[in-house]
């Protein structure tokens, strides 16, 4: 236990890194994912085809390999980005297809009659999606999106193995340095992760219940 208290500043630093990884790559993935989702349902075949291939390929590549590419292959190919930003790129790329699919599942939650009604009023694709579908889909999208963010929180730990000193990286260093207190060190790391994931999970559950009642 003493090990944890003595190294609290280190833990907090790692926690800060984890949070910044989560926030920055989370926001970036939301933007990229939304664009991909819109491309996927758009009337232009090449765009929707591209979005489908993008989703399929990235979703079937292990995160370890994606981060390996960003942290080791990119510098090898001549990039000089710091490791933190390499991890951001990797996490964003890996998370974006999940965001896109969560948005698509939210859009599917809107009754199809809404789209038919909009179309029969003469609205075009942009108007149907922008004015009718998305405003209704957004509340159904939020719980699955929070779940994606929870997964992202857990995935940031993989960045710890690729030279980013976030929570898992800190835990690994401390565990190696304090062989007699491994359990305490790692449980403390787990607690910090739970500090993010459990409140997010509760929030997702609440919102889901609320939105179910509204429909």
């Amino acid at each position, binding site marked *: 236990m003493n090990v944890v208290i003595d190294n609290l500043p280190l833990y907090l630093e790692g926690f800060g890194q984890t949070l910044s990884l989560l926030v920055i790559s989370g926001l970036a993935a939301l933007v990229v994912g939304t664009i991909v989702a819109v491309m996927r349902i758009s009337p232009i*075949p090449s765009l929707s085809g591209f979005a489908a291939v993008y989703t399929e390929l990235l979703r079937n590549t292990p995160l370890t390999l994606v981060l390996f590419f960003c942290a*080791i292959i990119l510098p090898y190919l001549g990039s000089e980005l710091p490791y933190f930003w390499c991890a951001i790129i990797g996490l964003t790329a890996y998370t974006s297809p999940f965001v896109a699919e*969560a948005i698509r599942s939210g859009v599917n939650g809107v009754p199809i009659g809404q789209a038919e009604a909009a179309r029969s009023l003469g609205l075009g694709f942009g108007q149907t999606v922008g004015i009718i579908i998305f405003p209704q889909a957004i509340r159904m999208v939020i719980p699955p999106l929070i779940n994606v963010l929870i997964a992202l929180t857990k995935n940031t730990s993989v960045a710890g193995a690729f030279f980013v000193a976030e929570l898992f990286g800190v835990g690994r260093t401390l565990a190696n340095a304090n062989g007699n207190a491994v359990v305490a060190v790692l449980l403390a790391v787990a607690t910090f992760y739970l500090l993010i994931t459990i409140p997010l999970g509760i929030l997702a559950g609440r919102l889901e219940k609320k939105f179910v009642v509204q429909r």
Partner: protein
Amino acid sequence: MSAPSVLFDAPGPRARRRSRIASAIVILVLAAGAAWVVYTLAQPRDSGGITLPGFFDWSRWERLVTDPEFWTFVGRGLLATLQAAAIAAVIAIVVGVLFALLRTSPKAVVRVPVTIVLEFVRGMPVLLMMFFILLVASTGAFWAVVLGLGLYNGAIIGEALRAGIASLPRGQKEAGLSLGLTRLQTKMLIEFPQAFRQMLPIILAQLVVLLKDTSLGFIVGYNELIRVTMNNLSAYYGNRFLFTLFVITLVIYLTVNLTFSWVTRRIAARSARKRGAAAKKTIAGPLDPADATTE
């Protein structure tokens, strides 16, 4: 584009022309991007004092591709990945059933602690769990990977099964109990088989995720595919084959994962047909079963 989307009309001549122009532009942009990548890769590069020939130069591949030893090692790595995934999958299903059973137990003494453990397991990274098992139980890397994945995915499968049980009509359980079956018998004979079938797509999709996550063995020191190629083989053949090795690994992983995803989808579609569930028409097109799983 098999089924027409509800979001837009079947295109007329003008829309078709516009769409063709847009498609042409998109394809042009993508082709330009691809051409740039290919061109950049084909350029010789200075790397640590030596000049590497372009990526498509045969010398960047020859020593690997023509060496039977190399393929033996890759095959062994792939086998190690599949082995870990298979054992972890069995553990995950067993753990999942146990979790679902205990968490729906009528006794609070059982239910509450199990719920806490479950939330704990679900809320922390698998990688941390593997590391924990590796250091605390000192099981060796293989069991750290397998047990970590089994426990974590078991928790997720358990939750899926619980949701499946909760979605069954109440009458199923009542009928079982009124026939004189015990609670356990009702659960195992009546509720579980139905919940399992209903949640099959989600469970299978989770197993594909599990397969993907065996790659975390790279970090905890289990010699699975990525570790074999990117660590051992790149050390043996030299750093100049690093990128070539990466491309080979990526292709193998994509082939295996896409095949498994495809099989999963086929099974899910078949089980949906058997249940007689007609595919509902949706706005954004059909989704994967994998969408229920986010990691």
